[in-house]
């Protein structure tokens, strides 16, 4: 990147900042992380619309089962705990990325994050399949369509993030902590934390409100 292009006054971006010590990675991060942040906001709108659609369709059960008959508070709370904890473990990985050059702690924290993400996905898939076993698939009613439009979309995002995480683990092995790898980890971190925020919406609006 040529020197003239850099706006020196605004070398900051959302998420944890690497800091001056990281030189090139820190400068590069500005544009790409900002771009990723904008993408997240666009995705936010997508989720918002599905939330709104869900809110207008909760009562459209068409004689089929409603929230109370379907949602299981226990498994939701384990899923929630796994996701919240995974945000923290990813935070620890970012912290080590910022404050050290050693790969090992980063890799360990990322592996912990991945495990938590996979636990979440496994439990969620189990929830879905037990709903479908009860005859409560998306084809049953408008309400269930809205549910299966919204919640699995979040799950799909988590699955994507997990795949991305695996790719990053490989890249850390292949390339080491190059500036490109660092900025990608920063973006993955944003994505991960963002999905937690969406999940707060889901457990509040879909599950807790549905069960109360």
């Amino acid at each position, binding site marked *: 990147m040529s020197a003239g292009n850099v706006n020196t006054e605004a070398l900051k*971006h959302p998420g944890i900042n690497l800091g001056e010590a990281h030189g090139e990675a820190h400068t590069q991060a500005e544009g790409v992380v900002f771009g990723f942040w904008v993408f997240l906001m666009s995705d936010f709108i997508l989720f918002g619309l599905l939330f709104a659609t869900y809110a207008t369709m909760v009562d459209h059960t068409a004689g089929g089962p409603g929230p109370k008959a379907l949602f299981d508070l226990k498994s939701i709370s384990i899923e929630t705990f796994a996701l919240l904890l995974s945000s923290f473990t990813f935070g620890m990985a970012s912290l080590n990325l910022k404050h050290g050059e050693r790969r090992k702690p980063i890799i360990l924290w990322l592996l912990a994050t991945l495990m938590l993400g996979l636990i979440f996905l496994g439990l969620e898939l189990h929830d879905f399949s037990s709903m479908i076993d009860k005859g409560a698939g998306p084809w049953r009613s408008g309400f269930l369509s809205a549910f299966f439009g919204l919640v699995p979309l979040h799950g799909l995002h988590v699955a994507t993030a997990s795949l991305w995480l695996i790719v990053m683990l490989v890249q850390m092995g292949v390339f080491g902590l190059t500036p490109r790898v660092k900025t990608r980890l920063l973006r993955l971190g944003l994505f991960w934390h963002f999905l937690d925020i969406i999940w707060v919406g889901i457990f509040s609006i879909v599950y807790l409100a549905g069960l109360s």
Partner: protein
Amino acid sequence: MKRNDAQYHYDLRIYQWGLGLALLLTAIPFALVAFHGAPPSVLLWMIGVLGLIQVIVHFRFFLHIDLSSQKREDLHLILFTVLLLVIMAGGTIWIMHNLAERMMAS
């Protein structure tokens, strides 16, 4: 690279606070729902408010968005997005609810 211990501990503290608050703000509504701790209408409000607070906690402690001027750009972006979300989602709920009342009431 020389490790800046003070900064490290500060950053660590932020994540710890984030986790603690998030767990707390999750546990309360879950418990309320599990033990029917409040009448449904109050409960809905509490879930909503606690959820909102938790969202802010995530933005502050995990995504490091704050009011410092260097991050204004991002804060503006978030606030603009929230404004649009309120318009779009709120408008959708308003319009659809009105239509349902007028046309689908059985």
